[in-house]
């Protein structure tokens, strides 16, 4: 069962709008090391506010290009499948979330 700490009422989200938000976020936060600043950026907040509707898009994105968007998945789901040894290793963090996606039935949507 999927647990979420976000509202179940997700706003409609298209692939184009998701990619626009990710691009805006990447371009604006590329020079910072501060993960709090990254996750406070308005585009990142809009992704999180999209709720569970963003999960397939996030998993697809992480599969193609691992990034700190993994933090959005943590906020949306309230879960943390990343083992302690993978902290700070973006590729391993993304891999842990992709495995989580498969366990929770998102594997088809994330193809």
């Amino acid at each position: 069962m999927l647990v979420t700490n976000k509202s179940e009422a997700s706003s409609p989200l298209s692939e184009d709008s998701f990619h626009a938000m990710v691009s805006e976020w990447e371009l604006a936060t590329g020079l910072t090391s501060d993960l709090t600043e990254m996750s406070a950026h308005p585009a990142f907040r809009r992704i999180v506010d999209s709720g569970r509707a963003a999960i397939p898009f996030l998993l697809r994105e992480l599969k193609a290009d691992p990034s700190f968007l993994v933090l959005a998945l943590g906020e949306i789901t309230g879960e943390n499948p990343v083992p302690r040894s993978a902290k700070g290793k973006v590729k391993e963090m993304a891999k842990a979330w992709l495995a989580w996606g498969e366990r929770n039935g998102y594997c088809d949507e994330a193809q």
Partner: protein
Amino acid sequence: LSIRSKEIYSKLVLNAKPRLESCFSKLKTGSFEITGNPTRAYNCVAWAAEDTSQWWWPVPPGAAYWPDGVAEEPTLVAFVQAFGTLGYVPCESPALEPRSEKVAIYLKNGAPSHAARQLPNGRWTSKLGQRERIEHDFDALEGNGLHEYGQITQIMSMRRKTSLSRFAAWLKRLVKLWRSSFFC
């Protein structure tokens, strides 16, 4: 990379120098060289600590690597403690000293924003967030612009490592990694 990521990557890699000059005003007047391509594998603090295997940052707790026993908070004290775990101690001067390695901690709006490391030639090396690695003048990344890192607030130094001590440090990290994987 996805097509969209490739497009962003191309935008970033092409004309990287003028792009960085537009973000850091002092880079326009000094000299700097791009010494590494963009990567999310490690960040400025990791690079200052000579660790290219992971991202170092104290918050949000659990999101990135942070040395055991150091407060998970975005404060100068925590950053000084983090570099202290490697053997660095606070010092006054950023001047090159043959037997010392130095790092500089930047603060912006009262919180740590960046760390750079001095090279044996006296210049400084920085990893810029998820972007390039550069070699630059001491204060080249200072400033209060949108992307600039604020002011250098703390210099730390330690005795320059020999090849043997570098190997010992690498071995220590390997053992630590193995132990954390084993007990997870």
